[in-house]
């Protein structure tokens, strides 16, 4: 359902993603791990074109996102089509990025209402059922600053789900949380995975990776150095760099 081919990304002259190839099946849960600065966030952000790419291609359900061929040249697709493509891709950020001026419910209904996806009634019903799903049915009228970090992140998940995305991207969804709040967010994500959502998760939570991932992708210095089932990656990785990285994370947590 996602097909990334020969993706190159530069920040100025800094080559951040180097010829990435990655193919993700429908319903798959892929966890991306790797040292800081290896390009994990950047790769994720390219997948909904929050970051422009310099060459290569990203296809989502057989449609390109961001760049398209036009008269034999690569160029950015019209904003309208880009917005349409982004509706298919939900994203959850490390810092939640909830809208502080809107109630929890309005955070969730803003996009479906603004884009005319639902009428007010349906949108509100959807919001309440999504909140129930992430265990926050009673917080609909609260404002983001009245929530704990774990609650905020669960609202952010509900907000992304309201657009009925076909794939969900998570960029270190629990890194900004106090340790005791991590579990509730991971539980919501597990729930989602069990329902068959296609998920791409950047995380340092190796427990989650071991339990939920169909595939673990290891990045280093802008490249995918290896990928495999959690069983293989965690017990018998092929790359020395993977071993070193895993050793560091696992002894620190």
């Amino acid at each position, binding site marked *: 359902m996602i097909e990334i081919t020969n993706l190159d990304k530069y920040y100025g002259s800094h080559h951040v993603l180097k010829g990435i190839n990655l193919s993700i099946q429908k319903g798959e849960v892929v966890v991306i791990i790797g040292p800081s600065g290896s390009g994990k966030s950047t790769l994720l952000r390219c997948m909904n074109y*929050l970051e422009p790419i310099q060459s290569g291609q990203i296809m989502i359900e057989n449609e390109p996102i961001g760049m398209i061929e036009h008269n034999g040249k690569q160029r950015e697709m019209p904003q309208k089509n880009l*917005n349409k493509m982004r*509706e298919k891709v939900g*994203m959850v*950020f490390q810092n939640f990025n909830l809208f502080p001026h809107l109630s929890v419910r309005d955070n969730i209904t803003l996009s479906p209402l603004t884009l005319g996806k639902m009428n007010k009634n349906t949108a509100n019903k959807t919001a309440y059922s999504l909140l129930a799903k992430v265990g926050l049915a009673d917080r609909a009228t609260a404002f983001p600053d009245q929530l704990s970090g774990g609650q905020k992140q669960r609202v952010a998940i509900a907000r*992304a789900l309201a657009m009925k995305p076909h794939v969900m991207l998570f960029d270190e969804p629990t890194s900004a949380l106090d340790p005791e709040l991590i579990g509730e967010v991971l539980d919501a994500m597990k729930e989602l995975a069990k329902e068959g959502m296609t998920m791409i998760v950047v995380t340092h939570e190796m427990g989650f990776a071991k339990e939920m991932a169909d595939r673990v992708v290891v990045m280093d210095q802008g490249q995918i150095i290896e990928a495999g089932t959690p069983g293989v990656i965690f017990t018998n990785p092929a790359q020395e760099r993977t071993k070193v990285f895993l050793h560091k994370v696992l002894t620190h947590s």
Partner: protein
Amino acid sequence: MALDFGILWQDGNLPLLLQGLWVTIRMTFLALILSCFIGLVIGLGSMSKVKWISGISATYLAWFRGTPLLVQLMLLYYGLAISLHIDFSASVAGVLGLGMYSGAYVSEIVRGAIQSIDRGQMEAGRSLGLSHWQTMFKVILPQAIRRMLPPLANEFIALTKNSSLLSVITVAELMRAANTIVADNYKYFEIYLTIAIFYFVVNFVISTLIKILERKLNVEGVRS
């Protein structure tokens, strides 16, 4: 020194001043609306990725901030009329002049407030499928407006004070009313002190209104 505030009650002076005050309030209010509109357009324009739009916005800002308001008013009222035969009435020229001048400052307030909003807000909006402008109007601006209020209060107060310059292009506002009266009776201190108090009261009302608005917006939800 013998002060004689009784002069206010003679020769219809007080009604004349009150009339002037009303003109000042009206002109200032209209100019204020114009300056908000211009400020929003130029402020958003200055952040545009389209070169000619940001270019025009930057030029606008540089010109109206870099030249004296008095000179701008003279150009607008006398200059255009005499050389280009664009003949505005004094009040129209006054509102335009004040509004365009103040709009330059408001545009900086708008830009500053928008840029102070975390980048993640725009990214969150875009990732939900909203367009740039939908996110701007539904997510960024509602938050930015709260941050604009304190500097806007300053700008509106400056605008009120600057409206006294309209006296030189013959607008019958408060300053001009006072000038007319003192030309007759030489009671400079009494008359100018009176209009100073009028200006003060107007500005006090403006800053109080904005404080109330700030508090109201805060109660409605945002503490960030």
